[in-house]
C-alpha cells in the first residue's frame, strides 16, 4: 500500500460531515497555521514541499503563491478551480463529493497564507449536487468558527463561497474562470497582467486546482520536507488519477508519484488490467488534451526505461515518443476502439468548447473537426492527413490561451502514432461505415491492407 494523503480517510463513515471530519483530525492545519505560523511560513512550507499544480500545467504551487502582489494593498483572493471538465478527469469531483471539508480546510489555510479574506470555489455547473454539498459543508465550518470574522481568535477573517459555472470547459482556464466569476462570458484574458497582479475584480488573485489546495493541510500538519520525500525528483507527493475506458476497475486512485505505469495498470490495488481479454491499444495519460501513446510506448519509454507516473517520465521523449501527466485523466483503449473516431470525438469537444475569441482556435478547431468527421465517415482524401497536421501546427502556440494547444496536440499525436489507421479509413471507406468498425475486425488484423508502415 502506498501512502494516502488525500484519500486516507475517505472510507470513514460520515466523513462528509463536519463532526466526523473534525473528530478524525480535521481542521488541524488551520489551527496550526493560524496559531503558530505566519502566512509567509505557510507559503515557505508549500514551496519546500515541491507541490505542483494538479490542474494540468504542473506549475509549482508555492512559487505561484509567492507571485501574489502583496504590496498594492488591494484585497486579495484565492479562487479554487473546481471547473473540472477535461475529458478523462473526474478526480476533483470525487474529492469534493466524499470529503468536502478537506477542500474547505485547505482553502482556509491557503487563504491565510495569501492574506485573502474573500475566497471562492468555482465549481462547474453540472456538479450541482456537489455544489450543494460544499455549500452545506461551508455552513458547518462557519458554525464551528472556522470561517467568518476573527477565526480562532487569530484576527484572520475569511469569507468562503461556492460559485457555480454553467457548462463551459474554457472556464477551467484561470483567467476565463475569473471572467466567469465576474458574471461574464468565459473569454480568457490576455496575459500579462497575470491574475497574481490583476485577477478577480482587478485584485491580486491566485487560482489553484482542488487537488492542489486539498494537499495543503497535510503539508502544514506534517511538513513540506515530509511531502517532498514522497515521489521522485521534482514530482513530489501523491496524485489523484482518474481512470476510465477499457480497464477492469475504473475510478479515482491516489498514487505516490513514481509508481510505474505497468503496476498502476495491472495491479489489483489499482486498475486490475484490461476490462476484457482484448489487448491494450493506446492510452492517454493526462486527460484528452495530452498526446495519446501507442501500446509500445506505454510501459517503456523510447529508450527502454520503465515508464513511471511522474511529470518527467510521462513526458520523456517529448511529443515524439512521450506525453504528459496533465490532470491525471487516464484513458485506456483496447483494440476495439478506433483512434480516428476518438480523435474526431475529442476534436468535436474542442470545437464545441472553444470560446471563439481568437481566430486560430475559433476557426481551426471547427475545421479540424469537419475534416476528421469526413475521414471517420468515409469521405476522407489522402491529402486530408497532411492538411490536419498543417491545421494543428497553425493553431498550436498562436492562441490566447492553451485551449488551442489542447485541441492541436491530440490530433498531431494520433496521426504521429496511428497514421496507418487514418490511411485505412481513407482507402477503405466501405469498411468503416459503421461506428463499431474495429469491434469485430480489430485494426491489427487489417493493418496489412495499408501499405506504408508507420511507427
Amino acid at each position, binding site marked *: 500500500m502506498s501512502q494516502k494523503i488525500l484519500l486516507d480517510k475517505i472510507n470513514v463513515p460520515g466523513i462528509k460531515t463536519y463532526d466526523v471530519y473534525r473528530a478524525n483530525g480535521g481542521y488541524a492545519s488551520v489551527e496550526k497555521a493560524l496559531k503558530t505560523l505566519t502566512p509567509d511560513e505557510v507559503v515557505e512550507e508549500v514551496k519546500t514541499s515541491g507541490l505542483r499544480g494538479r490542474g494540468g500545467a504542473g506549475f509549482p504551487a508555492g512559487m505561484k503563491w509567492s507571485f501574489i502582489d502583496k504590496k498594492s494593498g488591494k484585497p486579495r483572493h484565492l479562487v479554487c478551480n473546481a471547473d473540472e471538465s477535461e475529458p478523462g478527469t473526474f478526480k476533483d469531483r470525487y474529492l469534493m463529493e466524499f470529503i468536502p471539508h478537506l477542500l474547505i480546510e485547505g482553502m482556509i489555510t491557503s487563504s491565510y497564507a495569501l492574506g485573502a479574506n474573500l475566497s471562492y470555489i468555482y465549481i462547474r455547473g453540472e456538479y450541482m449536487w456537489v455544489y*450543494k454539498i460544499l455549500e452545506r459543508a461551508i455552513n458547518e465550518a462557519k458554525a464551528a468558527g472556522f470561517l467568518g470574522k476573527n477565526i480562532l481568535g487569530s484576527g484572520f477573517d475569511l469569507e468562503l463561497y461556492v460559485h457555480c459555472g454553467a457548462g463551459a470547459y474554457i472556464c477551467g482556464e484561470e483567467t476565463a474562470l475569473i471572467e466567469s466569476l465576474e458574471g461574464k462570458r468565459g473569454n480568457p484574458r490576455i496575459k500579462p497582467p497575470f491574475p497574481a497582479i490583476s485577477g478577480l475584480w482587478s485584485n491580486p488573485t491566485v487560482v489553484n486546482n482542488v487537488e492542489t489546495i486539498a494537499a495543503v493541510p497535510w503539508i502544514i500538519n506534517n511538513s513540506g520536507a515530509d511531502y517532498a520525500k514522497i515521489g521522485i525528483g521534482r514530482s513530489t507527493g501523491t496524485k489523484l488519477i482518474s481512470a476510465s475506458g477499457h480497464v477492469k476497475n475504473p475510478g479515482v486512485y491516489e498514487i505516490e508519484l513514481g509508481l510505474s505505469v505497468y503496476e498502476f495498470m495491472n495491479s489489483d490495488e489499482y486498475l486490475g488490467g484490461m476490462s476484457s481479454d482484448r489487448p491494450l491499444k493506446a492510452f492517454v495519460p493526462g486527460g484528452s488534451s495530452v498526446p495519446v501513446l501507442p501500446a509500445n510506448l506505454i510501459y517503456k519509454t523510447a529508450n527502454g526505461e520503465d515508464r513511471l507516473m511522474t511529470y518527467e517520465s510521462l513526458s520523456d521523449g517529448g511529443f515524439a515518443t512521450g506525453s504528459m501527466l496533465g490532470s491525471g485523466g487516464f484513458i485506456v483503449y483496447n483494440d476495439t476502439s478506433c483512434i480516428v473516431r476518438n480523435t474526431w470525438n475529442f476534436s468535436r469537444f474542442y470545437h464545441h468548447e472553444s470560446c471563439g475569441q481568437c481566430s486560430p482556435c475559433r476557426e481551426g478547431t471547427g475545421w479540424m473537426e469537419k475534416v476528421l468527421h469526413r475521414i471517420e465517415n468515409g469521405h476522407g482524401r489522402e491529402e486530408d492527413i497532411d492538411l490536419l497536421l498543417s491545421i494543428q501546427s497553425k493553431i498550436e502556440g498562436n492562441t490566447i490561451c492553451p485551449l488551442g494547444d489542447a485541441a492541436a496536440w491530440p490530433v498531431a499525436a494520433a496521426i504521429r502514432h496511428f497514421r496507418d489507421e487514418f490511411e485505412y479509413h481513407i482507402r477503405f471507406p466501405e469498411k468503416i461505415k459503421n461506428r463499431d468498425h474495429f469491434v469485430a475486425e480489430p485494426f491489427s488484423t487489417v493493418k496489412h491492407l495499408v501499405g506504408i508502415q508507420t511507427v
Partner: protein
Amino acid sequence: MERTFHPQEINITESLMNRINELISHYPEDKRKSALLPVLHEVQDAHDNWLSLELMNKVAEIIQIKPIEVYEVVSFYTMYNQKPVGKYMFEFCTTSPCCLNGAEDLMDYTCEKLGVEPGETTADGNFTVVGVQCLGACGYAPMMQLGDFYKEHLNKEKIDLLIADCKNDKIILHDK
C-alpha cells in the same frame, strides 16, 4: 440568429427572491454582476428549466445590469436553455471515454424508446434527450445528467426503469 419566441409565465416567488438575494450577498456590494451565473441557475430551475427573453430581462433588472449582458452570458454557457425543454432532460455524455463504454448506443436506444431524435422533446413535453460534452464521470460510463444529479453505470434496463420512474413522478430533479 434564430430565436423563436415562446411565452413563459414569470413567477419570482418570495423564497426564490430570498435565495437570489442570498446569492448576491456572496459578492462585494458593487460586484452584483458576479452573481449572474448562480442566479440564472436558480431562476431557470424555478421556471421549467428554460429562460425566455422576458425572464432574462427580469434577471437583468434584479442584478441591475443591461439585458444584453445577460443574453451574452446565457448564450455562452450550455446549461442555460433558451427554449422550452422537456420536464425530464436526459443529457447523455457523448465524449470519448463514455463512448468507449457504449454511450452512443445507449443514447440511440433511449431516443428510439421515446420516439425522438437527439435534441428533440417528446410530444407530451415530458422528455428531452440531448448529447452533451464531457460531464466528468468518465470512469462511471455510460452516464447522463438528469436535473441536478448524475445517473451513472447505465444500461438499457436502468434506462427503462428511469423512464418509468419519471412517468410515475418518482424522480427528484433538484436538491433544494
